[in-house]
């Protein structure tokens, strides 16, 4: 049943699943628990993922809160050293593998990719459901490791500490990570196949929205890098459980081998976290500036180049590890080279605003915040790519601040932006713009408040993973910890107003942002098979205006027609 654009046509029934008589959406196709847990609908799997990663986000966030409270004073007075070590390990493991890596791909990607290319579902719907179950099983192992007493190796599992010296639940956690890796491989394979095989008529490669390109690039990295992580985890288990001397130097093993394997995955993993964010931001900025993306093709190639060079820079994590100076120089060079495509993207987002008709909706505030934080995060990456400066900053709070700017300021901002942008499509409800904008601003300030002082701490030499620290570092730590409280409050805000909108929010029209993109041509929320009539694509992505016409014109015409 094709509905009219505009909320005026709806009844104002409240409640999560309230619907018009006869209306059928993916949400109303079965309301039992079974209908959710056995669903192969990519939209429902996206919701399953969204619920699970939200839970892990708050567990990881709680650990971060305790860490920051502990660092309020120089003495280790809140928790013991062992507890502290378990907390930052837990924070890292959960945030990386159970929140950031699946965050955008498994929720927004799962929900939107088939809709954006005009497909009924992903290429392998059952594999898609399996990937969620793998994620849940892996999550159970990791939570078990946590409840039994935790893991104290740091998320990096450096050998020989993790294999020979740690007295904690390394095996359980390593097995959890091994399994969760297969969940991302499954998602990756699914997305690659979906983009290749299921594009609707007229959806050529160069007409794909940048979000689809970002999912494609991310999937390539997931499929190629994650097996190496799995291998590294198997080797850890082999040494720890079976005593096979792989990393043990006493038996001729090489502890550095582990670092190479680990970073061969974990550096590309940074791009698994940031590429999807770039895709989301491109969609939001183009729509809210009512403008075609500046340099669409450059944006596509920049993402592919990032995905490829991302595999060749892992050694910049090892400048002080004792690797050969020659290797360090090559890795430094490639790390500088990868800055170029990232810079292209920042300039092109800025260029997209030029001569636009800009609206400052909540998603746009998140997206603009992303651009600022990502730029600063990227620029501080240049510091760490310079060998002499990295020697000084390596393993200090400067590194902590740098990657939080990329992963939290970047990826999490974009995830929140995307969540707001597509919320009406996913849930069929509108959230409160006022609350959402305040939360976006609040989070931006809270984030900088928390993490900017850490750059200074790092330059001053404060090492990371320190439970206690010399008193001269206290002033910056107090600032950071205060900021963390602000940030924590900020992260709770969406939980309330988005939650409220589910039950009492106004009904969303099919295309509340007047956005292009096939996902907006179907109903909000979409029907079970996405489209009632399968769409045909006749234009490039982001046709917010004709090439020879100013942006905003199309909106005026639309408004005229409506009036």
């Amino acid at each position, binding site marked *: 049943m094709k509905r009219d654009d505009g909320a005026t046509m709806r009844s104002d029934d409240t409640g999560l699943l309230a619907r018009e008589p006869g209306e059928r959406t993916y949400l109303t196709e079965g309301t039992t628990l079974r209908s959710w847990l056995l669903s192969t609908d990519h939209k429902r799997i996206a919701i399953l993922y969204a619920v699970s990663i939200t839970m892990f986000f708050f567990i990881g966030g709680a650990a971060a809160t305790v860490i920051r409270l502990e660092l309020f004073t120089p003495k280790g007075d809140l928790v013991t*050293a*062992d507890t502290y070590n378990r907390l930052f390990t837990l924070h890292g493991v959960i945030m990386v593998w159970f929140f950031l890596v699946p965050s955008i791909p498994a929720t927004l990607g799962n929900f939107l990719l088939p809709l954006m290319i005009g497909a009924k579902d992903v290429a392998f719907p059952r594999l898609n459901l399996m990937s969620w179950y793998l994620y849940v099983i892996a999550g159970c192992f990791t939570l078990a490791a946590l409840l039994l007493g935790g893991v104290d190796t740091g998320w990096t599992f450096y050998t020989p*500490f993790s294999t*020979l010296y740690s007295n904690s639940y390394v095996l359980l956690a390593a097995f959890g990570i091994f399994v969760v890796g297969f969940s991302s491989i499954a998602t990756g394979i699914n997305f690659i196949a979906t983009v290749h095989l299921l594009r609707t008529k007229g959806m050529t490669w160069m007409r794909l929205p940048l979000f689809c390109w970002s999912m494609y690039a991310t999937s390539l990295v997931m499929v190629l890098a994650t097996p190496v992580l799995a291998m590294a985890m198997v080797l850890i288990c082999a040494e720890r459980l079976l005593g096979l001397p792989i990393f043990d130097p006493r038996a001729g093993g090489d502890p550095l081998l582990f670092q190479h394997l680990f970073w061969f995955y974990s550096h590309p993993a940074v791009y698994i976290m940031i590429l999807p964010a770039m895709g989301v931001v491109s969609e939001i900025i183009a729509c809210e500036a009512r403008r075609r993306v*500046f340099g669409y093709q450059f944006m596509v190639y920049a993402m592919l180049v990032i995905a490829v060079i991302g595999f060749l820079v892992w050694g910049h994590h090892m400048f002080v590890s004792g690797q050969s100076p020659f290797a360090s120089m090559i890795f430094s060079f490639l790390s500088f080279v990868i800055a170029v495509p990232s810079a292209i993207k920042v300039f092109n987002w800025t260029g997209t605003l030029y001569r636009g*008709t800009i609206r400052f909706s909540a998603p746009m505030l998140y997206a603009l915040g992303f651009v600022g934080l990502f*730029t600063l995060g990227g*620029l501080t990456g240049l510091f760490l790519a310079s060998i002499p400066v990295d*020697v000084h900053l390596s393993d200090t709070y400067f590194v902590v601040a740098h990657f939080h700017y990329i992963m939290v300021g970047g990826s999490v901002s974009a995830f929140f932006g995307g969540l707001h942008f597509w919320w009406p499509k996913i849930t069929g409800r509108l959230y409160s713009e006022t609350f959402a904008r305040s939360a976006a601003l609040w989070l931006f300030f809270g984030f900088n408040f928390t993490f900017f002082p850490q750059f200074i701490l790092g330059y001053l030499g404060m090492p990371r993973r320190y*439970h206690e620290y010399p008193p001269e570092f206290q002033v910056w730590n107090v600032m950071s910890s205060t900021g963390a409280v602000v940030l924590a409050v900020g992260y709770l805000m969406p939980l309330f107003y988005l939650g409220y909108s589910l039950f009492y929010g106004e009904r969303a029209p099919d295309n509340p942002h007047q956005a292009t993109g096939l996902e907006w041509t179907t109903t909000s929320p979409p029907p079970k098979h996405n489209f009632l009539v399968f769409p045909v694509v006749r234009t490039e992505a982001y046709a917010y205006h004709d090439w020879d016409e100013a942006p905003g014109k199309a909106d005026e015409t639309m408004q005229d027609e409506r009036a």
Partner: protein
Amino acid sequence: MLESASTIAPSVDRIFWVLVGLSVVIMTVVGTLVLSFAIKYRAGTKAYRGPLPDWMSREVEIGWTVATLFVALFVFWWAVSAQLPHFLLPKRALEIHIVAKQWMWKAQHPEGVREIDALHIPQGVPVRLEMTSQDVIHSFGVPAFRIKQDVLPGRYTATWFEATKAGDYHLFCTEYCGTDHARMTGTITVMPPESYATWLAAQPHGEDLAGEGAQLFTKFGCSGCHGAGARVPAPPLAGLYDRPVTLADGSTVTADEDYLRTSILRPEAQVVAGYPSVMPSYQGVASEEQVVAMVAYIKALEQGRSEAR
């Protein structure tokens, strides 16, 4: 403010602050553009919004890509050329041996003076640190010197510095190493050379490192094969240090500290050509500190000295 107390610190700081300047410039450019576009082109203003001219979407794009690439390559070249002298360890330097373990730093001066979680060094003299770990990976980081080097089990890693300012500086373990990682800290005391000499003389001396090694060489029975007049065929050690050695598999290695260390702990790993692999392993018999002393002894053996053939 962070002290700058070594010869390399000013050049690290120079790169750091230029990068800060570059970041400020780029953040300002991006920030100004975003903000001014946001204001000028916000919905409802009467700003001109015609189509973009062709040159803007091609030349501008290529222009800023190339500009970014050049800036990146320049910073790379500058940073690497600043680092090159630090990659090369000075030959004539005060050689301090560091053995790290959970959770303490042990330092040995060549004269045999030992310190724990502390290191006294003279100002204005290049100091070379030869380091190894008894258990997990640690890292020797001194922010005031802008140096940091991971300390690995099973091999020697080295770094060097020349302190320029007397004073006490933090030593941090900067690679996570377990429970008391945050307490694996120490103090580096830089003293004028005269005060250093006085300090050194006042410390309880044992044998110097090589002398201690000589005693261990006898105690562990090494001299039975490698010593003068031994009947078992064992490769001669005199003048061995820093020379090329041909191995049984035909390859050649340099007899550096790492080679000597490996040959003591895992003799079967690199067998010298022409000799049977009969030497027992000293893994678990000799401690890291004892190995350090024996390596110092072998290094001190001159060609033709009587202790070894």
